[in-house]
Every structure is written in structure tokens, then in C-alpha cells.
């Protein structure tokens, strides 16, 4: 208050107004300073630079040219490659993304780059589906041409000797009888059997009987075919893949129910394609160090055959979207020596109870769509581990064999992956993937009084043929998009140390 009194004496009325607010002299001075801030000029800076922007930027004028005019190269409208309906600006974006991907040397880092860290909305595709009549849908999204009732010509050229067949047949019969007669007690011995339902018990039997049949065939053929020694065998293998599919531009959710989305869910704005993420667990998987031979050449007319145009919104067929990270899981870890597909065997029992299906032909269609989906997603994931991606197409076709069966009935598939460019329109890229499928065949009819009745020899022969096909060594580079220093895991001897160094796997 003393300061106020002094101000009142010297400054008259103005000071009185301030004094009523009970402010000290220092605070008044502070307020005045805030209203009229003093201009601060540092030693290094000048008034020209700040707050005024200098008009003269550092700019090198082009040098005077000679007689010949030199222009920078004109940028073409589209980047190299076929782009179809994708507009030019977006095509350049995709092209540069692919270019940036090549600079990353390690496969794991590339996959991290491809599978964005954020979650995206995708169509989640379990490959065992109870829906009826999804074969055309699966054909379209995987871009496959289906050849029914046939297997490729390679299977015709292979013949099974009578010696080997007669050696294997009694062993297989023994396995079947053993599995039927066995009192199954799973888990620990003290655990009672009641914990399992009869359906679960049946599934266990099916899965294990198939594993035993595979073991029997493989071990008995090993002496004649040394490539079977090098195969890698696993059970309960996770297979997952992520891809885009074009052709859904026309779809708009403009129904009279207000869904509120102009584009369908899971729609990629850049490529105008839908995103799919498949997931599956295979019963038995065999992988090889070298790729299987291609079933037909790329220039065959079968590769450009028509496929069914199933362009309905997947929501209408019972598919659903969910946010998730894109994943590629081929069934092995990075750095595994056996990187190429050989054979997968799947049992449908875990997901599907055949008794509850409404239509009699449902099981046939379910196995067909599963066979297409499994072999496609498996090869797709493996291609990504070899350095290919949606930006870098396959330079050679990848092939695989799949079997769907429950120990009694078997259906055989052979698949050839020709393109990874499903996200471009079909008119621009005419190449299709091809799937050969044999109809469902029964290995035997029944087991009565300790005897197998109605045993089908041809089914066993085709089963053996799957093991007789030898993987081929190729002369060209199998991983063209990986750097030249990259050592294939087959040739590596100290790969574990290196992996540990980087802290992966």
C-alpha cells in the first residue's frame, strides 16, 4: 500500500485507478511492458531477416546454353508396366512404393514395410466355411481357373511299380485297422476319456490316421527316392496370407438402408481393390529345398482361360470385415532351408461337422473352395518370403499339391501360381492361376470284423504319386528381387549366428 500512496501523491488521478486494484509498482511496470513489448534485436540477427522475409533467396540462375537446347527428360504419363484402370498419379505412387521396397535388403524388414504397423479393415477369410456355393467366389478372389476331374500331365507320366505298391498296401491296411481298433486316450493317462466329445475323438482319429499313412509311405519310399529324406515335415501348421483383388469398382452401398458407406468396407482407395486376409491351420505340411516342376508353361492357352465373374459384394455371401494387421505366414520361420511347397494335407473335421450341413453336395463344394484357398494362400505367403510381392510379379510359376481328406475319403488338388497381380484389372493382365481338382474318392468302404472292405487301389496309387514327384533344380535365379549378396538359406552354414546378431526369429 505504501507504493500506492506514493503514486497517488505524484501521478494524480491515473494512479488512483491503478491503486484500486491493489497492485504494487513492479506489477504495474510489468503490465505496461506487456502492452508495449520492447523490440529485441540479437547480435547475430538483423532486422532484415526477422520478422521480414527476405526477397532474395539463394537461387542459381541457369547458365546460358549453347546452340543445342538441353531439356530435362520428359516424365512419361504412366510408369513402366500395365496399369489398366488405375489413374496415372496413383500408378506412380504404387510404382515408387515398389522401388523403395527394393532398397530394403532383408526380407523381414520388407515384410514389416509391406504389412503396415497400423491395423486395416480387411475381409477375414477362414478357409473352412460352412456357407453353400462359394466356389465361384473363391475362384474370383484368387483369380483361378478350375479344371475339374483331372490332374496335370505329370501325374500321368509317373507309374507306380507293383513292388512298391504291394509293399505299401499291407502297411496302410495295418494303419487303418490299428486306428479303428485303438482305444484312444489322449492327454495324460490319469485324464479320463469323458473330457472328449465323440466328435472330438473322431477328429483326433482322422488326423492321426492321416499322419500315420504319410509316415508309412514316406519311410517306405525313402530308399528309392532320396529327395524324400530332405523334406521338412510339420503338423498343425499355420497358413495365412494377405492380398488385394480388383473388379469391385462398380460396387457402392447405395441401398435404401443407410449403411453410410460410399465404398464397401475393406476397400483400398489407391488401387480400387478389396483386401482379403485368409487364415488356416493345415494338418501336415511337407516342404522342399527346391521348387516343384511347373505343371504347364506360362504360354499355354489354359493360363488365359476365363474365370467366373463373381463381383458381388462379399458381405452378401456372408463374409465379414474386421480390423487386423496384414500377415504372411507360409508355415515356417525365416531362414528355414526348405522354402518351397511340396504337399499339404488338411482334415475338415475340426471346423465342419458333416452331419449338420443342409445340402447333400455341401461337402464337395466346401472341399473345393478350401482346396483352392489353401493352396493359393500358402503359395502367396511363400512367394513373399522369396522376395516377390504385389509390386514385383513372379518370374517363374510356383506349384504345390494339396490333399483334403479325413482318412477314408480323399480329394487331390494341384495348383500353379502364375501371377501376384490380382489387384490390377483382369483385362490388362490376362494370366490366371490354375487349379486341378480330382473328385472325392474313398480309400475304403468299411471296416468289419477286423477286415478292410472295398479297398480302392487307385486312390492309394495317386497318393503315392504325390510323393514320387521330384523337385527340380533351376538354372536361373530363384530370388531375383533380393540383393545379389543374399545367401539362400539352403546354402548357408552359419545362418543362426547371423540371425541372432540381428535379433530376429
Amino acid at each position, binding site marked *: 500500500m505504501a507504493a500506492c500512496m506514493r503514486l497517488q501523491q505524484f501521478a494524480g488521478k491515473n494512479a488512483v485507478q491503478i491503486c484500486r486494484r491493489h497492485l504494487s509498482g513492479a506489477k504495474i511496470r510489468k503490465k505496461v511492458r506487456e502492452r508495449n513489448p520492447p523490440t529485441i534485436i540479437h547480435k547475430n540477427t538483423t532486422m532484415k531477416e526477422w520478422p521480414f522475409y527476405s526477397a532474395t533467396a539463394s537461387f542459381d540462375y541457369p547458365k546460358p546454353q549453347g546452340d543445342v537446347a538441353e531439356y530435362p527428360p520428359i516424365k512419361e504419363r504412366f510408369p513402366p508396366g500395365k496399369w489398366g484402370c488405375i489413374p496415372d498419379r496413383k500408378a506412380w505412387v504404387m510404382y515408387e512404393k515398389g522401388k523403395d521396397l527394393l532398397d530394403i535388403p532383408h526380407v523381414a524388414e520388407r515384410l514389416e514395410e509391406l504389412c503396415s504397423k497400423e491395423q486395416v479393415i480387411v475381409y477375414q477369410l477362414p478357409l473352412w466355411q460352412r*456357407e*453353400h*456355393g462359394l466356389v465361384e467366389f473363391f475362384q474370383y478372389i484368387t483369380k483361378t481357373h478350375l479344371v475339374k476331374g483331372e490332374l496335370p500331365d505329370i501325374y500321368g507320366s509317373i507309374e507306380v511299380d507293383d513292388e512298391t505298391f504291394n509293399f505299401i498296401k499291407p502297411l496302410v491296411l495295418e494303419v487303418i485297422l490299428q486306428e479303428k481298433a485303438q482305444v484312444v486316450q489322449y492327454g495324460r493317462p490319469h485324464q479320463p476319456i469323458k473330457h472328449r466329445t465323440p466328435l472330438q475323438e473322431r477328429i483326433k482319429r482322422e488326423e492321426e490316421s492321416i499322419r500315420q499313412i504319410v509316415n508309412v509311405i514316406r519311410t517306405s519310399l525313402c530308399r528309392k527316392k532320396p529327395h524324400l529324406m530332405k523334406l521338412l515335415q510339420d503338423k498343425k501348421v499355420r497358413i495365412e496370407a494377405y492380398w488385394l483383388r480388383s473388379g469391385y469398382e462398380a*460396387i457402392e*452401398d*447405395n*441401398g*435404401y*438402408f*443407410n449403411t*453410410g458407406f460410399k465404398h464397401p468396407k475393406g476397400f483400398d482407395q489407391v488401387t480400387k481393390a478389396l483386401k482379403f486376409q485368409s487364415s488356416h491351420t493345415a494338418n501336415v505340411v511337407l516342404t522342399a529345398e527346391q521348387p516343384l516342376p511347373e505343371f504347364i508353361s506360362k504360354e499355354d492357352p489354359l493360363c488365359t482361360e476365363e474365370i467366373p465373374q*463373381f463381383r*458381388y*459384394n462379399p*458381405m*452378401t*455371401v*456372408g463374409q465379414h470385415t474386421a480390423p487386423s494387421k496384414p500377415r504372411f505366414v507360409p508355415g515356417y520361420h525365416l531362414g528355414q532351408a526348405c522354402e518351397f511347397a511340396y504337399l499339404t494335407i488338411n482334415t475338415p473335421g475340426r471346423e465342419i461337422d458333416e452331419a449338420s450341413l*443342409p*445340402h447333400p453336395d455341401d461337402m464337395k463344394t466346401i472341399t473345393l473352395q478350401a482346396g483352392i484357398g489353401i493352396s493359393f494362400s500358402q503359395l502367396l505367403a511363400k512367394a513373399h518370403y522369396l522376395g516377390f510381392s504385389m509390386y514385383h510379379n513372379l518370374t517363374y510359376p510356383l506349384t504345390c499339391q494339396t490333399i483334403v481328406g479325413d482318412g477314408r475319403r480323399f480329394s487331390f488338388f494341384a495348383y500353379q501360381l502364375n501371377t501376384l497381380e490380382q489387384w490390377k484389372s483382369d483385362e490388362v493382365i490376362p494370366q490366371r492361376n490354375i487349379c486341378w481338382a480330382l473328385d472325392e474318392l474313398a480309400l475304403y468302404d468299411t471296416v468289419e470284423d477286423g477286415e478292410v472292405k472295398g479297398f480302392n487301389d487307385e486312390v492309394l496309387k495317386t497318393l503315392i504319386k504325390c510323393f514320387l514327384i521330384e523337385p527340380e533344380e533351376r538354372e536361373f535365379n530363384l530370388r531375383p528381387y533380393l540383393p545379389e549378396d543374399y545367401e539362400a538359406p539352403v546354402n548357408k552354414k552359419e545362418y543362426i549366428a547371423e540371425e541372432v546378431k540381428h535379433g530376429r526369429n
Partner: protein
Amino acid sequence: MAHWMKRAGSILPFWKRTIPPFPVYWKGDPKNRVFLPTFWMKLVKPDREMPPDYLQFIVHKQMSTHDVKNYLEKIYEVPVLRVRTEIRRGIPFTKEMWLKYVRNPGYPIHQRFPRDAEREMSGVINFTDEFKVAYVQVPEEVKFTWPDIFKENKPLMEKALEERKKFSKEQKRLEKSKGSKDLPAWFR
């Protein structure tokens, strides 16, 4: 349930009411029979393009998939493969639409709402009730085609469409000239 809500059932129209509880069956009683269920199903044109073996219905909200299947199989003798249901959000409507609906109850609210206005939600008073939609898959032998009910009235419809086109053209012209109202009409 609050006591005053029990009365509310009698005010609602019959088709909107909840299903009365099924009488408890005691052993030895005669079999309970339902001759007129309060369930109903309305066949509608699909809002999205669908495969030919699919049908779309709007059904009573309390109907389950089993109810839908039994309803079609037992009463209409239509074989059914699979049923999928989902509950849709109510539809927003404006005051004008409501007035039209009150004067003419046949006026479908949910088909007329413009989509652009829906996103902005301009002039929305309220939402309609939620409703259940059932997708039914039938075998390929069953074929259903929508009949042409308005075969005779078609020219009238075409006239209406032409008028609408004209109207939309004028509207576009007016929208273009929104920013230049100072100018005379010739320069717009």
C-alpha cells in the same frame, strides 16, 4: 418392465407388438398349438446386388434364424438352405418426409432419403425404429422373379422421371449461380 409400459403394447399396432409368452406345458396337458403367429415376413428387393439364389426379407424383430426357416418351409413350403439375420439402424427422416408419411402411410420413408443429405444430417428430426433383415439362401431349383405390378402405369412413371430430370437440371443451374446473384440472369 415398468407398470406403465404394459399398456403401451395395446397402443402399438398388432404387427409391431412383442410376441406373447408361450404358455407353459405341463405333462398331460393337450398339445399347445399356435394358429396365427404374430410373426410376419416382408419380401423386399435387395439393397445390394446379390447372387440369384439369395432372397432378402424384413422380418419381425424377435424372429430368429430357425423361426425364419420354419416359417418358409412349413407355411409356404419353400426349401431353405441357410439364413442369416442382422439388425439395421433406424433411418433418419426430415420434417417434410414425416408429413408426407402421415398424409400417405404407404410412402416409404427409407427409400426416399437422399444420401448426401444423410451424411450431413441436415433437417433430421428423428430416426425410425430398428428393424431386422434376413438373408435367405435357397437351392438353385427355386427361382423367384419380381413381378411387374406397374405394367400399365409405366408411361406415367416415365413421365415422372422426365419431370424429375428436368427439375434436377434446373436445380443444377441454380446451384451454379449461387455465388453470382448480383449478375443479371443472362451472364450466369
